[in-house]
């Protein structure tokens, strides 16, 4: 066997102190951790309350954990010492929390001018929106997401997916990396902020474009939108999505795959409503007669787009996730071997990897603080007084 050289990761040598709970902070930081950043989760001595959620095993993997009580002056001092070794701090506390500990950006920037300090509040800071409590569903409510999500009925719809936090999780690494790239030229860090409200706005790219000539895509919510019409039930109550178009030249039509005659678009449009309803009912009936697996295979072989509509836990079987190595086994110290989704962006020269499970709370406290020069005796004293 030849020598295996481990690829260099792009962010080797970059250190991030992660104080966040919830979704946007830890999942945002994860994307940097798995490209080489040394992420240290700093949590309270009894562990972050976010650990109660099953999601935490994924969102908080690939990093180390140090427990420090920031409510104690000695704890806040230790955190300041850690800032001296770090490039980035990420926090997602309620407004004013970091300032209470003397750890807000204004209190740190003079001592650590190269520090990039990323805040992830629910609402943009310095606006009256900050008075609204920081809960995901309240962000959906205030921004109109609930009235603009299409549904089977009129009226607002609760979004199962925490989309504000999840899109903010995609923006957090951009916030951090752009500030670091800017630092390469200015030699100075700065304060960057991604609010959950901005997470919602990231989704409105197609939908909210108002001009003097009018709004260019009306938020009509019922009946459901264009792609809802290509969802079909198959045999055994399974569902399939068969959207039109998509950059390939099909060799057959969907109608021919499901055993119906082709009706050209102009004829379809010329039909009366009753005729068209009848034709579409025959489509739905034809889908219900076939198994999903068989349909997906036949449609894809014909160059047509088709995707099984699965529950989240069924997605690990996707042939493309399998083929790209995106389904990984992670040995969690509390629940044992788990199957998780791995790295989701692919850098050919510096591929990155899942670096390990969510660590036990405080698993690396001694290692992290020891590297600051604290002796075993110091650490023992800090532990006895509940600081770590």
């Amino acid at each position, binding site marked *: 066997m030849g020598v295996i050289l481990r690829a260099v990761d792009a962010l080797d040598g970059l250190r991030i102190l992660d104080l966040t709970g919830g979704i946007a902070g830890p*999942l945002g930081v994860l*994307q940097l951790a798995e*490209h080489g950043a040394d992420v240290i989760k700093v949590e309270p001595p009894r562990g972050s309350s976010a650990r109660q*959620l*099953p999601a935490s095993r994924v*969102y908080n993997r690939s990093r180390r954990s140090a427990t420090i009580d920031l409510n104690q002056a000695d704890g806040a001092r230790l955190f300041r010492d850690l800032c001296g070794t770090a490039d980035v701090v990420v926090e997602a506390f309620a407004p004013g929390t970091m300032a209470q500990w003397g750890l807000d950006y204004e209190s740190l920037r003079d001592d650590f001018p190269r520090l990039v300090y990323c805040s992830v509040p629910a609402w943009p800071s310095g606006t009256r929106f900050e008075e609204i*409590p920081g*809960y995901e569903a309240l962000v959906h*409510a205030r*921004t109109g997401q*609930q*009235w603009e*999500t*299409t*549904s089977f009925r009129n009226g607002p719809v*609760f979004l*199962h*997916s925490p*989309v504000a936090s999840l899109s903010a999780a*995609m*923006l957090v690494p*951009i*916030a951090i990396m752009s500030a*670091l790239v*800017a630092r*390469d030229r200015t030699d100075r860090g*700065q*304060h960057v*902020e991604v*609010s959950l*409200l901005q997470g919602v*706005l*990231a*989704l*409105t*790219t*197609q939908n*909210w*474009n*108002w*001009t003097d000539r009018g709004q260019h895509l009306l938020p009509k919510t019922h009946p459901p939108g264009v792609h809802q019409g290509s*969802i079909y039930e198959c045999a055994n109550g399974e569902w399939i999505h068969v959207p039109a*178009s*998509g*950059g390939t030249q099909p060799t057959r039509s969907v109608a021919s795959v499901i055993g119906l005659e082709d009706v050209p678009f102009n004829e379809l449009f010329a039909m009366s409503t009753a005729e068209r309803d009848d034709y579409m009912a025959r489509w739905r009936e034809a889908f219900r007669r076939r198994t999903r697996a068989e349909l997906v295979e036949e449609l894809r072989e014909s160059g047509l*787009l088709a995707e*099984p*509509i*699965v529950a*989240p*836990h069924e*997605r690990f079987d996707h*042939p493309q*996730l399998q083929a790209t190595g995106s389904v990984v086994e992670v040995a969690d110290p509390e629940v*044992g071997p788990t*199957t*998780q*989704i791995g790295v989701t962006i692919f850098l*050919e020269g*510096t591929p990155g990897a899942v670096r390990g499970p969510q660590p036990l709370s405080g698993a690396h406290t001694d290692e992290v603080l020891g590297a600051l020069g604290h002796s075993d005796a110091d650490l023992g004293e800090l532990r006895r007084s509940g600081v770590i």
Partner: protein
Amino acid sequence: MVDFGQYLAGPYGPMLLADLGADVIKVEPTRGDGMRGGFIGPFMGCQRGKRDVALDLKHPDGVRLALELVATADMVHHNMTLGTADRLGIGYEHCKAVRPDILYCNTYMYGPVGPLAHFGGVDPLAQAAAGLEWEEGPVAEGNPPLWYRYGHGDVAAAIPSVTALLIALYHRNRTGEGQSMWASLLHGAMLYTADSWLAADGTPSPRPTLDREQLGLDALYRLYETEDGWLQLAAVRDDHWVALCRVLRRDELVNDPRFATAADRKAHRAELTALLADAFMADLATNWRRGLRSAGVPAEISVDTWDGETILFDDELLRAGVVAEYEHPLLGRVRQFGNLVTFSDTPGHQERATPMCGEHTREILGALGYADAAIDDLRARGVVTWPGDDYPFGV
């Protein structure tokens, strides 16, 4: 950055970089981006801040011009299907040959390897594969799946592709090395359900379930109709529960054994939901919100944007740069989302409107050293174009 993308999953990423100050040049087909003609809103939503050169990549001179641009660039980005850029002569190897440290990013539907790599795609494929449509139905409660029309799949390819580029740029700043990279709708959409994992015996991690009416995850984290509109309640903590009962003037619920603990309240979700639904009908949404907020219970009115109440028209958010307003030559004033990230020292900006097709062709070719006569000749031969009196697009 040279942006060869069309539609959304490509161009949205470069637009975010333009917001951050990058000089993004959109290389557009002379017949226009596939979305420019019919979809003015979605098109504008991913093109502002760019300069635009319209050239024909099927013409050898068009490819030559494109590579001359790449030679001046740090990044290339597009969402062509597998092999298309190579066939055109603007693949990674072509670009690397003229710019050895180029950062080259392709967004795909499914990624460049595997049995479905050759497919193009559209947003709902990603939502189906991630479990989003299944959970929003919710299918488990007997509804059909429901597609989220906000294009979550496209967004999940475009935004992480910027993360990939910035990570690679940081690395290049240290090593001088460029590289190619990719993101996909499928892989990006996995972030939306990343929290779902399997135990060793295949048991899925527990997840909250939406009710069949699509109103909430729990009696205390749910939408309620009031006398005049809908209210989102988030009474998720124990202390919220007692305060909620008092504000609703249903003090007797505090001592009701069915709702004594958080676990009891979850176990009796249907009964509690019915009681609260009845109680909320007794007053106006604004009154409930005021009462609940002053009692420390999180709640917010569910804003109906059909009533015209959209945060795009909030002056405070405009001042904060979170909403953008600028002029477009054909459309007048435009309002869109503004900075998705707020920077203390290097603020972003969106004053440059969505470009017209070929708006900057002459300027960009001029900067490459072409004389006016040569540029006119390229246009006469159909290699490049710019807007004339017969400009066919609305944007």
